[in-house]
């Protein structure tokens, strides 16, 4: 398999060094000023580092890369960044790319709470610190019967959860996306209940395939794909892979999700990719691979049955769809 070449970034889009430096200086001075103005106690704590700097360092050099898409060709990065479902920006596939600049990602923090011993709200740079990033090439199958192959960059969700020491009562993990109707035009209409909520069973969350992704195609995550940090669960329909995560809550009882609340007949808790269980209104047996003509057969658990089928042993997947 030939190595994927990242499309070159045109010279015109590169920020001139002077501007970049100016901005750094401006930020540093601003930070210094803020520190000086703050209470004397603050002078002894270092100014907050932006997560962008932490991530930029982590993205330097060659990351370990694993393809878990059977060598299938990567989706064109242009398609992967212009054909998106991210209703916070609007319901058309082109809306997220058009309105993505309105998403405010700095500063960013993630609240980790509920059934964990180390609960709190953590700056993204602290969430990222110490995590070994890697590239994972996964198929992504949308419930709307289209699919892509994406080279994500991230780390296993399990690594994050372990740090916060889930208690024995932690049986489910609930995720919440950002809520910011001032900037996210889609949230001004209640198409679904905002903020967007998703959830996994704890064993699904701890599974080594389950990623917290902070980048794709070698770069940090574009806003329209769920910047700065999102979930990726490759054997489930795409809507499970919640974007722009601000809260992770561990709970004892099975929670509901935004899509279940929107239409419980059509969206179940598990939402595992399954060609044999159709969506009530359309078939799930085949999928359109973006960039290809015709249709592909959809694979059980999106092709990850060997890794995850045992999680659902003995369950009636027609009932637990």
């Amino acid at each position, binding site marked *: 398999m030939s190595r994927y070449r990242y499309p070159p970034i045109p010279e015109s889009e590169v920020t001139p060094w002077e501007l970049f430096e100016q901005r750094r200086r401006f930020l540093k001075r601003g930070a210094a000023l803020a520190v000086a103005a703050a209470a004397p106690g603050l002078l002894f704590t270092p100014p907050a580092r932006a997560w962008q700097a932490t991530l930029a360092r982590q993205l330097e050099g060659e990351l370990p890369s694993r393809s878990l898409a059977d060598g299938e060709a990567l989706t*064109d990065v*242009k*398609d992967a960044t*212009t*054909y998106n479902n991210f*209703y916070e920006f609007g*319901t058309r*596939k*082109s809306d997220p790319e058009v309105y993505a600049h309105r998403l405010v990602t700095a500063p960013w923090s993630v609240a980790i709470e509920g059934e964990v011993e180390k609960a709190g709200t953590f700056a993204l740079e602290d969430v990222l610190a110490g995590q070994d990033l890697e590239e994972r090439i996964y198929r992504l199958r949308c419930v*709307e019967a*289209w699919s892509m192959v994406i080279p994500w960059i991230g780390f296993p969700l399990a690594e994050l959860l372990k740090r916060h020491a889930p208690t024995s009562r932690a049986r489910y993990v609930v995720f919440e996306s950002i809520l910011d109707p001032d900037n996210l035009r889609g949230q001004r*209409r209640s*198409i*679904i209940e905002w903020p967007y909520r998703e959830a996994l069973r704890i064993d699904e969350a701890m599974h080594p395939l389950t990623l917290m992704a902070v980048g794709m195609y070698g770069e940090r995550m574009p806003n329209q794909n769920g910047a700065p940090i999102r979930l990726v669960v490759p054997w489930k329909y795409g809507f499970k892979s919640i974007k722009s995560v601000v809260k992770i809550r561990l709970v004892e009882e099975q929670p509901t999700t935004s899509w279940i609340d*929107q*239409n419980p007949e059509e969206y179940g808790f598990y939402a595992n990719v399954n060609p044999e269980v*159709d969506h009530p*209104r*359309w*078939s799930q047996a*085949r999928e*359109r691979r*973006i*960039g290809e*003509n*015709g*249709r592909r057969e959809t694979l059980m658990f999106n092709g990850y049955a060997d890794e995850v089928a045992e999680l659902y042993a003995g369950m009636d997947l027609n009932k637990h769809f």
Partner: protein
Amino acid sequence: MPDASQRILAFRLLVLLAGSLPAVWLAWQWYFGDLGAVPAEAVVHFTGRTGLILLLVTIAFSPAFRLTGWVGIMIARRQIGLWAFFWLVAHMLAWMGLDQFWDWPWIRREMVDLPYIRYGAAALLLLVPLALTSFRRMQKAMGYTAWHWLHRLVYVAAALGVTHLWILTRADYRMPMLFAAALAVLTVFRVGDALLGGKRDA
């Protein structure tokens, strides 16, 4: 000053030109690759929406004529109706060819299994006799009363088309609601007109 028939012909040509604009737009977008990541899907959506919009416009012509009395509306009606039919046939062909890649077993299976495909197919089927009898000679041969009764099928076809769109919509019902509301208003007008206006036909 050109005589009346010449002016009508010129007007018809103008409508023809205007009616072909969506096709020009679509061809332009296709040619320059502006239809996004999934051009096939964009074409299927565009043809379907344009067809349904024009179908509702055709239905709106009769009340518009009643309100304004401008005869141009009635001269343009058949053409716009035929454009609607053209776009809906294009919609079906785009779905079969661009979307399903002429995979006949699957096309058949989807037509059997999926209600929204059935509603869409039924709508198009109902429009076939309307398109075939849209010419003045047919209108005369059938007699006006029979012709008008037959052409009321356009309301049924439009309702099936809106249902088709409604079923396949995911979460955001703004567009199908707009279409449904427009059709409801037009239907109320039609029924109200028939009840109040007696035997007048339009």
